[in-house]
């Protein structure tokens, strides 16, 4: 592990219910990198992300974020590490009773000393960044699925986190909206240097956005391939990886 490794996962063993999902997974994420986590349905991508952000605790192994262990609830620095990350959940998870600007402003009001009118201005800026100008006072129930993803991204960016976790940011969106979100992710990464971990199934997103990927497999209960997505697509001999990139059913 070096100072450049902002996330380190060591020998992670994770269960979902009584099923063993991940068995001895280890990898790292470098500062400023966009890492993709790939794999078929049910291979444990979301479980892995939940363990990486400390929402679930592993059976064994550990996860370090900027050298702070988040896989241990007894660690008093865990909350400090949690404030360094932003999460975009698969279901957006916006607070339904709050407007979009209130959703974004919530964490800023809590963790900064800015006066409230400036916080709401900043929330407006964040929403503008993700292309939701004019929707500040809309409720989540009044906007489309793609807009919810964008609003959730704005909320995840509220405190300018050093590390951003994105769980299927483009799933279920039309190709144009999905491409817009991919461009936005890249732009934010380039302008702010935010480290990103993206879970996705979308081949286009994988190839355009991620710099490195790890591929999980249900049967191996761990990583079966790791590297640059373009190289893996061309050169990987593992049949599961080849089938994934070639969209083969078998």
């Amino acid at each position, binding site marked *: 592990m070096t100072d450049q490794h902002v996330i380190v996962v060591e020998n992670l063993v994770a269960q979902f219910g009584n099923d063993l999902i991940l068995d001895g997974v280890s990898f790292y994420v470098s500062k400023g990198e966009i890492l993709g986590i790939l794999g078929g349905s049910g291979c444990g991508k979301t479980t892995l992300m939940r363990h990486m952000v400390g929402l679930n605790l592993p059976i064994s192994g550990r996860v370090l974020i900027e050298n702070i262990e988040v896989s241990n609830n007894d660690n008093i620095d865990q909350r400090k590490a949690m404030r360094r990350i932003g999460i975009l959940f698969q279901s957006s998870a916006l607070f*339904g009773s709050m407007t979009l600007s209130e959703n974004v402003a919530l964490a800023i009001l809590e963790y900064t000393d800015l006066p409230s009118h400036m916080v*709401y201005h900043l929330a407006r800026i964040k929403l503008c960044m993700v292309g939701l100008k004019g929707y500040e006072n809309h409720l989540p129930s009044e906007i489309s699925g793609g807009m919810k993803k964008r609003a959730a991204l704005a909320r995840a960016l509220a405190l300018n986190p050093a590390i951003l976790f994105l769980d299927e940011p483009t799933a279920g969106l039309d190709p144009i909206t999905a491409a817009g979100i991919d461009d936005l992710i890249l732009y934010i990464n380039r302008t702010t240097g935010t480290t990103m971990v993206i879970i996705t199934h979308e081949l286009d997103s994988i190839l355009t956005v991620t710099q490195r990927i790890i591929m999980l497999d249900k049967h191996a209960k761990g990583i079966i391939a790791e590297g640059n997505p373009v190289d893996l697509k061309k050169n990987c001999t593992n049949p599961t990886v080849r089938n994934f990139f070639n969209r083969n059913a078998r």
Partner: protein
Amino acid sequence: MPSADSAENYQVKLTAKERNQLLIRLKGRVDVTTAASILKELLPRLDQTDTTSIIVDLSKIIDFDDYGALVLLQIKAKATASKIKFKLQHTNAQIEQILNLVHFEEHQNCALTPVKKQSNIFMRLGDATIKQAFTIRYMISFLGSAMICFGNILIKPRTLRFNDTIVQMQKTGVDALPIVALISFLMGFIMAFVSSLQLRQFGASIYVASIVALAMVSELGPIMTAIIVAGRSGSAYAAEIGTMRISDEIDALFAMGFSPTLFLAIPRILAAMIVMPVLVLCSDLFAILGGLLISVSMLDLSINTYFNQTLNSLDLIEFTWGGSKSIVFAAVIAWVGCLRGFQVRGGAAQVGNAATSAVVSSIFLIILIDSIFAVIRSYW
């Protein structure tokens, strides 16, 4: 990310220049860690300055993000409000990118706070009236739908979801029995205790048994049980169906050709109507036992005397009356609970509102219907 924003991380310098210009030099970090402090220091100083133009020099900035852009926007807003010229100087590539990302040039009005839709009293009155009209229409429509479903069940009993009805009977009836029994026992206990204080003075302690029996069987038993069921099961019906509504499960039922009323509401309404009279009977029994405890321990009445007096006070009509009321109460509680659930739109907060509304509406209707029953009985 906000952290200790020591003054060493940034520097703000204001210099008055020729032709009444003000030069603001921002140095160091102008980002999430320092923005609040910079604004706190800078804005009061800007208010005291008399100038015709503001130039912000960004050449010494080492870290800049959208919080930094907020600082610039606040200065720009001050300048615009005072009709002062505003200009940025020495922006580097990183700053340019951030300013583009936040659409810096488009943000003219900075002091935007969340605007709730404002409307005058007539508009609100009109909105409320229209909303109530729609609610009444929905209530009638749902009542009609439930009646049609009951009619269909009478013609084709197999259309009733029998297993669901049994499950709902357990949830609404069996699971509610302990709390109904406890509260009724305490009600009987309190009623006997309070009435005994007065009746004992006249040597009429025996009538404690009559008071407890009559009050509970004809009035308090059905009402107390109905209020408990409204709080326990009415709210649960609204929350369950409301959650199904916001997660599109009801639309899925409809799309699969099921009637959501038949599938979800009828088992609940029927289950409530079946178990409620039984709960009321249990409530009456436990209240009488509560009264018995006081009578035996404080008034020196024997168990036999107490029960004989209780039976002498009660007619079959009292039980029938209480039972009939409880069936109507049950139908209303379940109908309102399901109705509020079906009316949910939006998110989780609306589910909570629906559950609250189900309880409040049910209790109001219970009291109203009980009053109607009382009037009918007075003319019986």
